[in-house]
């Protein structure tokens, strides 16, 4: 086929936040690969450095820039692409598309939008537009209305049918919603919600919380050929966001007629919108009467399309790229089978279960762990099984490798009443609560009534509980085998049955994910563990004798705060390096949003949990020569002893090295021995933070770069703004960092990548910690230095030396440009959390700012992180006592640029005494008008608020910060961050155009 396009711009999705993980990078990566294979030049723009799509192996030119239409336009003007593809850019990408499509800009620049078209985006991007589109398409939508009086509200509810959801229309502070089951309740709640509205109105919507939630993905080509790839079903009803629910593929509890009806509706909507690409339609289906509503229509690639791609072996994003180029579904070969095409709807002979992972523990006890219509999970894992129980148990232990089972000990302490109360209000331990109830003998029908969970799912949990009860009654070969087939680990069986050793053994088998239920022989090996008679992975090995040395890379599983997408990035490039250096590669991972669970990332893919038994099973069949655990984090490296016992070489970080660095006492002993100053437990040093990632062959070392942190060292390094090259470190300090690094690597004799954290206090350098599994800074540093750090690390792990690599040793030369890594938080999505930084990491993602100067890079980093930069207006400074001295210079800096400075009484006095004019504002408890009023009246451009909630004399501080956050006023939780912002605003004039350049 003749290719009409020579150069295509692919827009990424930006930083990881709750509801938006690496699935967009996975989609972008597939698209780039397809485009490159078609001989097209690929230009990528993204603000998130921890992405695979922004590496030069996938894109010809890469722009790490803030994602907004202004920047994208500059890129278009620089690169002059023939076409733009934003389907992998999430909501951000679609918004940019809409802006580009205005005022004839695209026509003027001779470029076209592929994938989701502006008319389509407009017709689905908000509730009203969606409603009117569905009306035109003659598909059922959720009735909604704004009511100004009780009578209007009741009239609406009578027509739509109870229950209805009520919320304040145009409210200042959000204020949540309530479900009214009948007229009495509606009338009782009306005044409350109308009162919260600025205009005395409420928004009413038919409530379908108790309906089943079903999603159907459709792919359509330019000729209108369409197939529905797969359906998904949430175990929880619509009232829990599907991102927070256990999901099974394909849908399990629908009748034939219902499934056909929804698939048909999804295809119809896709056709009605003339979508060329993918379309995900989300339905609410009544549990018994067959009635349905369309909840959302998404013309972009997202978490669900990624999950469906992985669970079916049908790569939706790659197919989207093909159809965007004008290819027909039947012209696109299926890479898994080699004989079928994208026109084949996948046929599954298994089911896949996806379980969400939350990171509430990072936010302390105040975080609200209840689940509702907005998503709160930060990651997910999936597993495939020939039965639901097997898939579910595997997915659950992929999320909780330590627990290994669906049980949660602390729930045993709850009374029956407490347990039932928890069932009525879904929270992040829902599946465990339901299981505990089943174990206590609560009838499935009663559970169904309480939770709305379909009997099918409950009966599967009952099967697991029955098997567990049988084991508890005594271990026999029969109930051992039954438990294994349902997915129990040997360790769980031992614990439940109270035995020391197992007299039985069951051999795992591996089945193939082939999109065709074994109808055709496969070309690409993608396996999951099962308990069938024939081990297909072993059969594949017999038919394809090993030619090259084989390395298994163990992944990190689900993403969570602190276990970011950087690990997936690292594992992906480790696989690529191994491949390039002539190894056969095998991947084991279970995160559906990951790049490494793409079946093309390695020569072979296993999707399974990462517990000892699961890893052992893979290795017994696959018999790799070596394994790399370092990019799987702590959980993975703990398997090193087991693997060595099996005779497998462990390359890079292992359990011993990990323990050594994690164990503070042992680690500080080493530092003492090496005469390295360190932050022992007794001293708290509030100094400046710095870190290095060092490449080492055990003797020599190469430091790609020293990064400096803007916030104090007491803030978790992952939540700190990282600057490279450092701005304030002296040559002597840098020299000391290099010196200490050298001493440490020689002592540890470790091969690969080591991260060392430093505190600079009173002109002296201290080591605070080190890690052999940290990769957080690597994508950023790799891009800033243009060094393929993961490639080097992988080669060093396998035994090459730094002189083989030939990039020198010591500290690598520093670039002229400046780079900053700015953390991105998801506080908005998590009720009850406070915008304060501390020892626990809280950021979900990161962006990178690139500039000719530090100030420019930082400003771009702030913009890319989503901060609304303003150059006028008010700045409220409300700081902890320890920050008071620093607040003077800060206030002066803002004032100098024309900002109006506000401060609470004491701080204002201090500022005024130091000749900084500050307006005193009352604290909330001192009566109105006060700090909250400032926020609600939109008089603030920035809020600097550093009081710790625990030590704050005024607990209202938390409320102030959250209110500002929800109104999108930048909240600066440290004086250092605020000072850096003030400085970079001063150095970058508003008139200056943003500097945009490819890496």
């Amino acid at each position, binding site marked *: 086929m003749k290719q009409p396009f020579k150069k295509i711009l692919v827009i990424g999705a930006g930083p990881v936040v709750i509801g938006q993980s690496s699935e967009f990078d996975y989609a972008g990566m597939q698209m780039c690969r397809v485009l490159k294979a078609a001989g097209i030049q690929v230009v990528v723009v993204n603000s998130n450095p921890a992405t695979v799509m922004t590496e030069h192996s996938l894109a010809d030119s890469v722009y790490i820039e803030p994602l907004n239409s202004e920047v994208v336009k500059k890129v278009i003007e620089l690169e002059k692409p023939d076409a733009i593809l934003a389907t992998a850019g999430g909501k951000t990408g679609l918004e940019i598309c809409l802006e580009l499509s205005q005022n004839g800009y695209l026509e003027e620049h001779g470029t076209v939008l592929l994938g989701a078209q502006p008319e389509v985006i407009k017709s689905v991007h908000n509730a009203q537009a969606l409603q009117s589109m569905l009306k035109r398409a003659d598909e059922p939508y959720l009735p909604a209305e704004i009511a100004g009086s009780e009578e209007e509200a009741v009239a609406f509810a009578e027509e739509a049918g109870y229950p209805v959801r009520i919320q304040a229309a145009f409210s200042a502070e959000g204020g949540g919603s309530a479900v009214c089951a009948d007229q009495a309740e509606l009338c009782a709640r009306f005044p409350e919600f109308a009162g919260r509205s600025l205009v005395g109105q409420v928004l009413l919507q038919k409530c379908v919380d108790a309906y089943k939630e079903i999603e159907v993905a459709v792919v359509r080509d330019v000729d209108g050929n369409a197939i529905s790839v797969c359906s998904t079903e949430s175990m929880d009803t619509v009232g829990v966001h599907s991102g927070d629910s256990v999901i099974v593929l394909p849908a399990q509890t629908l009748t034939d007629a219902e499934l056909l009806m929804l698939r*048909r509706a999804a295809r*119809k909507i896709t056709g009605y919108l003339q979508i060329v690409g993918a379309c995900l339609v989300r339905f609410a289906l009544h549990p018994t009467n067959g009635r349905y509503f369309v909840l959302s229509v998404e013309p972009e690639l997202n978490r669900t399309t990624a999950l469906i791609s992985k669970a079916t072996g049908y790569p939706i994003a790659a197919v989207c790229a093909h159809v965007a180029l004008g290819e027909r*579904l039947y012209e696109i070969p299926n890479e898994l089978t080699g004989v*079928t095409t994208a026109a*084949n709807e996948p046929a599954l*002979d298994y089911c896949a279960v996806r379980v969400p992972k939350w990171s509430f523990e990072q936010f302390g006890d105040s975080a609200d762990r209840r689940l509702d219509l907005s998503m709160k999970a930060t990651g997910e894992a999936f597993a495939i099984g020939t039965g639901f129980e097997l898939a579910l148990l595997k997915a659950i232990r992929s999320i909780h490798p330590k627990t290994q089972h669906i049980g949660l000990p602390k729930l045993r302490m709850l009374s029956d009443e407490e347990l039932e109360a928890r069932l009525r209000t879904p929270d992040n331990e829902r599946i465990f609560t339901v299981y505990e109830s089943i174990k206590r003998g609560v009838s499935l029908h009663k559970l169904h009534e309480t939770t709305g969970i379909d009997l099918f799912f409950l009966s599967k949990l009952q099967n697991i509980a029955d098997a567990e009860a049988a084991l508890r009654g005594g271990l026999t070969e029969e109930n051992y085998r039954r438990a294994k087939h349902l997915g129990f680990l040997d360790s769980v069986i031992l614990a439940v049955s109270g035995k020391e050793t197992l007299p039985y053994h069951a051999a795992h088998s591996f089945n193939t994910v082939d999109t065709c*239920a074994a109808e055709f022989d496969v070309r690409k090996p993608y396996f999951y563990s099962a308990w069938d008679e024939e081990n297909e992975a072993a059969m594949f090995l017999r038919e394809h004798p090993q030619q090259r040395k084989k390395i298994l890379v163990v992944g990190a599983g689900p993403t969570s705060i602190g276990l970011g997408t950087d690990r997936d990035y690292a594992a992906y490039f480790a696989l690529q390096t191994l491949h390039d250096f002539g190894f056969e590669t095998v991947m084991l991972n279970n995160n559906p949003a990951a790049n490494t669970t793409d079946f093309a990332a390695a020569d072979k893919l296993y999707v399974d949990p990462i517990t000892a038994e699961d890893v052992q099973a893979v290795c017994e069949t696959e018999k790799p020569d070596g394994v790399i655990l370092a990019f799987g984090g702590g959980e993975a490296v703990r398997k090193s002893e087991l693997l060595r016992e099996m005779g497998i070489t462990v390359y890079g970080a292992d359990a011993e090295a990990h323990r050594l660095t994690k164990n503070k006492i042992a680690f500080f002993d080493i530092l003492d021995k090496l005469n390295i100053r360190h932050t022992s437990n007794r001293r708290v040093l509030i100094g400046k933070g710095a870190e290095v990632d060092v490449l080492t062959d055990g003797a020599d070392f190469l430091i790609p770069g020293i990064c400096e942190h803007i916030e104090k060292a007491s803030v978790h390094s992952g939540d700190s703004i990282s600057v490279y090259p450092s701005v304030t470190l002296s040559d002597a300090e840098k020299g000391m960092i290099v010196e200490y690094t050298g001493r440490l690597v020689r002592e540890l004799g470790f091969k690969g990548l080591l991260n060392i954290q430093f505190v600079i206090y009173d002109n002296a350098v201290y080591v605070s910690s080190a890690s052999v599994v940290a990769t957080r800074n690597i994508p950023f540093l790799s891009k800033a230095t243009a060094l393929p750090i993961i490639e080097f690390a992988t080669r060093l792990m396998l035994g090459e030396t730094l002189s083989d690599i030939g990039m020198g040793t010591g500290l690598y030369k520093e670039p002229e440009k400046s780079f900053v890594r700015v953390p991105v938080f998801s506080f908005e999505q998590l009720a009850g959390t406070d915008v304060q930084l501390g020892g626990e990491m809280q950021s979900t993602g990161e962006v990178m700012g690139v500039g000719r100067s530090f100030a420019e890079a930082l400003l771009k980093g702030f913009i890319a992180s989503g901060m609304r930069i303003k150059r006028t207006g008010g700045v409220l400074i409300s700081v902890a006592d320890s920050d008071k001295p620093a607040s003077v210079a800060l206030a002066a800096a803002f004032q100098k640029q024309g900002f109006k400075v506000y401060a609470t009484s004491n701080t204002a006095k201090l500022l005024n005494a130091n000749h900084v004019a500050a307006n005193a504002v009352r604290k909330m408890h001192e009566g109105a008008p006060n700090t909250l009023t400032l926020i609600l009246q939109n008089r603030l451009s920035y809020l600097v608020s550093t009081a710790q909630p625990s030590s704050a004399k005024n607990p209202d501080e938390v409320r102030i910060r959250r209110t500002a956050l929800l109104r999108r006023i930048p909240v600066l939780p440290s004086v250092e961050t605020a000072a850096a912002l003030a400085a970079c605003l001063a150095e970058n004039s508003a008139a200056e155009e943003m500097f945009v350049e490819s890496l």
Partner: protein
Amino acid sequence: MKQQPQKAYLVLEDGTQFEGLSMGKVGTAVGEVVFNTCTASYTSLLSDPTYYGQIVAQTYPLVGNRGISAKNRTSDIMANGYIVREWCDVTEEGEMTLDEYLRSRGIVGLCGIDMRRLTRALREKGYVKGAITDRIDDMDALMEQIRAYTISGAVEAITVRAPQHLDAAPANFRVCVMDYGFPREILDGFTTRGCSLDILPAFYSADQVRALSPDGIFLSDGPADPDDNPAFIREIAAMTKLGVPIFAVGLGHQMLALALGAQIEKMQQGHRGSNQPVLCANTNRLMVTEQNHGYAVRSESVSPDCAQIFLTNVNDGSVEGLLYRTFPGFSVQFTPSTDAASSTSWVFDRFVQMMQEARK
């Protein structure tokens, strides 16, 4: 799933054995063993006459999740046996589980086997006979029973005994439906387009059809080997000379091709599932089709003077549809859906159009 103490087996004619658990009636059932990759439609699967005499293995692993209620209960089970990986024992009030249902209908079933191993065995061996049984103590006798098994007289056994009439309002066309044993759902495609139907026994002759002076003739799908039915094929050949548009599906399509001198071959890999992609050479339109057949029209045997191969299978290039040149008519290998939103319902419109043109 409840604990099923009773073991049961599937034995193939080459001696391959699969061990599982009994489902439905306990006993022995012999038949041609075929797999189907469709997802959920077990209720229609079991009653589909094209499975007559066959033991159906459904590759989709979790079957019967919604139970069998009066609403989706099928009239007659055509398959000789049913194999699934796992059936679900949860039912609502008034529903039967798949197990209870099969038992009530006297159908022998099997569950809990390595379905992928079976699918591979069937895929590699092509046409395979076998038996589900609870007893493997006398293998010789069982193997003899399997080897002796043939599906014969399938069409005669399930075709209507006497003509049936189905009215449509308004009735613009009269269509004779030759019943070779087919799922009745397809008839909606005609009645909703104003065709009144005369459903005729398979043994009806072309003369008997002509006596009804139809506007069109529909040759239905049906079970088994098209070569088994030479008498029907002779009559079909005569029907093509009546000057009446003919539309044929599945077995009807194969017999029509045979009647016009083309040949039929046993496929290395049959098409059994609901996701077979079919492409139209004239419009470049893709269809996602439901199929269940192990024979196909040999493409080299289709004379271009006689018919155009206008539909082909995207996966293996096999013949999926013929557009005839010697008389007004066309035939397709797949089972078209009557759902107007589907990619295959156009066949009914095309047929009606042909009948309209024939009137002019």
